[in-house]
């Protein structure tokens, strides 16, 4: 069995499972953010009327708001706090960081487990070798919270093998964007993805992170990297506890796709969709007014360090506002210790509280018509950020564009 089948078989109490069959599996972790917690709790309280069976498995992170701008939103958070307290679930209030980064940093994600969440990018946790996927509020309210279970149709597994050595200025984010464009939105509906090959295996864990992250954007159910020594060391360092890993047997895959990325240019996902990916040379020169490090795929320490490489000795273009949103308090504190907060501030960037940042423009990130933002965020669909256009790119490209005032190839800035 492959990794997904092994995890789902274990979780559903079966000797083996095969693609296509429906299983009812135990879930080890349920992740809810501020918006979905509210809606899920409402369904649970009003329609299901059952207690939360395993509160210790439930993690709520307020990340879309770093501070409620309206009374209506304050009420929603107040209701969430009361609900979390009543049921004894884990709560991380505003300013803790992005839901997925917080959950991982706080040690809630372990290899071989079933992780479900209302956020569609929940598959990102497959980075450490778990089966992770996004479910709707009704799944959580009807089965997850009251019974600790979820139904799954066992997916077919597709292995994506990436090899090659990228050139300086080309990052894991560029490779991930490139794959999104190659596979296409919806190209992998209902399937699970295994990211493999020397390129992916050679990456540090927080760079591998960027691959399972794209699973949902190509329509997949989940994405993972087989856990290895690096994964286990990473988790041991994070939590002080070295977990056991489950690995797939390797043969049970429906399809194997391969890419060689040595010659790759930096990539940009252009409006209106995540799959509309172009090499930076095709879009360089498009004026931008906003730049942001943040979101599920950005705001990592790695991103902040990369941006600092570009901004060292330079200043943000006067026509651009550059927002930096750390992915968690840990990252923020570490960036402060490394002097990166001062460095980026001095270069003209503005620091924001750890959160989802401009995702859906709840505290920030609404654009005027004809304005454009380049960011490390995961989505660029129209309507999420006011009237403007969103471009997605690597931290290097975001920083380089912030300096130039238009989409720019970061290789001109880092050598």
């Amino acid at each position: 069995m492959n990794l997904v089948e092994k995890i789902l078989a274990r979780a559903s109490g079966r000797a083996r499972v095969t693609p296509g069959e429906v299983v009812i599996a135990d879930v080890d972790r349920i992740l809810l953010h501020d918006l979905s917690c509210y809606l899920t709790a409402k369904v649970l309280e009003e329609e299901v009327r059952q207690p939360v069976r395993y509160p210790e498995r439930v993690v709520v992170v307020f990340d879309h708001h770093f501070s409620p701008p309206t009374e209506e939103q304050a009420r929603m958070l107040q209701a969430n706090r009361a609900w979390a307290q009543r049921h004894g679930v884990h709560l991380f209030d505003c300013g803790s960081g992005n839901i997925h980064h917080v959950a991982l940093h706080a040690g809630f994600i372990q290899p071989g487990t079933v992780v479900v969440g209302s956020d569609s990018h929940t598959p990102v946790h497959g980075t450490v070798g778990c089966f992770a996927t996004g479910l709707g509020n009704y799944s959580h309210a009807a089965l997850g919270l009251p019974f600790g279970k979820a139904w799954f149709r066992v997916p077919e597994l597709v292995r994506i093998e990436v090899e090659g050595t990228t050139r300086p200025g080309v990052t894991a984010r560029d490779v991930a964007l490139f794959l999104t464009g190659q596979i296409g939105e919806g190209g992998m509906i209902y399937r699970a993805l295994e990211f493999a090959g020397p390129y992916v295996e050679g990456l540090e864990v927080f760079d591998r992170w960027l691959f399972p992250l794209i699973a949902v954007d190509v329509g997949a159910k989940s994405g993972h990297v087989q856990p290895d020594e690096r994964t286990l060391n990473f988790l041991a360092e994070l939590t002080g506890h070295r977990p056991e890993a489950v690995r797939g047997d390797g043969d049970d895959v429906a399809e194997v796709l391969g890419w060689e990325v040595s010659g790759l240019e930096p990539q940009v996902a252009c409006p209106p969709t995540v799959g509309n990916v172009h090499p930076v040379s095709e879009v360089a020169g498009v004026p931008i007014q906003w730049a942001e490090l943040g979101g599920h795929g950005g705001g990592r320490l790695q991103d902040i360090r990369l941006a600092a490489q570009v901004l060292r000795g330079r200043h943000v273009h006067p026509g651009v506002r550059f927002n930096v949103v750390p992915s968690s308090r840990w990252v923020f504190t570490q960036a402060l210790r490394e002097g990166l907060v001062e460095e980026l501030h001095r270069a003209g960037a503005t620091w924001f509280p750890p959160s989802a940042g401009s995702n859906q423009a709840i505290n920030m990130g609404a654009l005027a018509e004809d304005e454009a933002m380049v960011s490390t965020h995961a989505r660029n669909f129209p309507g999420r950020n006011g009237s403007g256009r969103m471009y997605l790119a690597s931290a290097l490209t975001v920083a380089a564009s912030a300096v130039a005032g238009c989409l720019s190839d970061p290789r001109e800035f880092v050598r």
Partner: protein
Amino acid sequence: MKAQVRGRCWVFGDNVPTDAIVRSHLITRPMDEIRRHVLEGLNPRFPREVQADDVVVAGRHFGQSSGRAIAVRALKATGVGCVVAESFARTFYRNAFEMGLPILECPGITGLVSEGDVLTVDLEEGSVVNETTGGRAQATPIPPFLRRMLEAGGIIPIARQLAEGVDR
């Protein structure tokens, strides 16, 4: 669950995100308000003129992006009888059955219909008949597990049975 839905169709393209079904800033509003803005960015006439039992037809990967269940709830609140698409984003697909909105995957459907055609959709057989043109298409039949959910009106009524393994 009705066995058949008959109504005018509204046609949308590929990769329609949930953000386009319900825009982000509306999600905390009352459903009565949200309903009046469903899919308005793609077709402003839709929320104003949609009638009970109308059929939404879409291309590939309908309902991608955020897994917000409110996208399904809002579509349901417009009175739409069912959604027929080339394919669905998986969270949308789950949400639809879990909330009792009939949907059918029907490869080739977008080539068969034009906006405003009258369709008859048989949910049990999975057949789609374009009464305006006489064309027909066969959808992937709804798997028994999900059909049961749909017949129950969603996941909540059968949750206990599922959890206790009556299904096995």
